[in-house]
């Protein structure tokens, strides 16, 4: 960084000696209303002998948080994986998987309209081993997205947003998805659906 650093105002979250040796939690101080940038600019004003005009010199880039994947491949990642990060990204990924699921549902309706041969062909495809693997995965995605969607709706009412509740609901949602999927496939096995 070309920006002059002052000893009184180090970047509060980037302790370089910490990278690779320990995880860094969410830099709260930095994320809250740009507290870090305020600390730095006030420090510079005091420590440099530049004239007091705030508009002098090249335009400075605003401070940014390190990328999610900082560290990562060669050293341990900078950010510690939180279960809330996992549940957040899983909601998107399962949503995109369910896009495929909805197209399969549409194919079911179209096959039904095309007559008995096409319909049994379609059922044979879904009932094959790869078909069952896909359907099992989609069941998991469906129940996850359903439960996490309800969690989002609860959040929209302003409840359950604190860290402790959000962590607990993450575990609950993951457990529900696994349990509901196993239960439905258990029922399917008993009723001759698979």
């Amino acid at each position: 960084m070309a920006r002059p650093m002052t000893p009184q105002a180090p970047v509060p979250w980037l302790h370089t000696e910490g990278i690779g040796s320990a995880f860094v939690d969410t830099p709260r101080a930095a994320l809250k209303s740009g507290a870090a940038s305020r600390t730095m600019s006030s420090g510079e004003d005091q420590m440099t002998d530049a004239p007091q005009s705030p508009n002098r010199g090249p335009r400075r880039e605003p401070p940014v948080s390190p990328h999610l994947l900082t560290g990562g491949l060669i050293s341990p990642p900078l950010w510690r994986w939180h279960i809330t990060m996992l549940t957040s990204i899983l909601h998107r990924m399962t949503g995109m998987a369910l896009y495929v699921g909805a197209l399969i549902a549409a194919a079911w309706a179209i096959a039904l309209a095309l007559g008995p041969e096409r319909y049994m062909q379609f059922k044979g495809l879904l009932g094959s081993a790869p078909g069952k693997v896909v359907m099992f995965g989609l069941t998991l995605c469906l129940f996850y997205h359903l439960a996490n969607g309800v969690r989002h709706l609860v959040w929209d009412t302003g409840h359950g947003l604190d860290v402790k509740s959000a962590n607990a609901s993450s575990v609950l949602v993951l457990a529900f998805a696994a349990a509901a999927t196993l239960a439905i496939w258990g029922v399917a096995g008993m009723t001759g659906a698979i």
Partner: protein
Amino acid sequence: MVSYRTALGRARGLGSAKHGVGHWISERVSSIALVPLIVWAVYGVLQLAAGDYGFAVHWIQNPLNATLTVLTLAISFWHMKAGLRVVVEDYIHKALTKSGLLIINLFVCGLFGALAIFSVLKVALSGGAF
């Protein structure tokens, strides 16, 4: 060169499109509707998976099953279109690529949603005769 445009004139059109609230509400309303519909649909799929073509035709001829299937398909495809739109808008920043993907998303959801609903109605109303 001096610009004679007023500050307000420059700012106009650069802000929000004023459609954000509508999108936000439609995402939530479709989610709420899908909670019971998906639970019902899972129950329906369990029955259909155990049955043959004749059973499926009989099942879809039931007015409640036909109506709920159409609603599940319509709201699912609507919800999907909105969901993937947000994903594209979040990650794709090149104007042409973004517009292209948004149009493909809209057309895929529109086409397959319409095909699926028409197919359900055809079988429900004709009893599978064709």
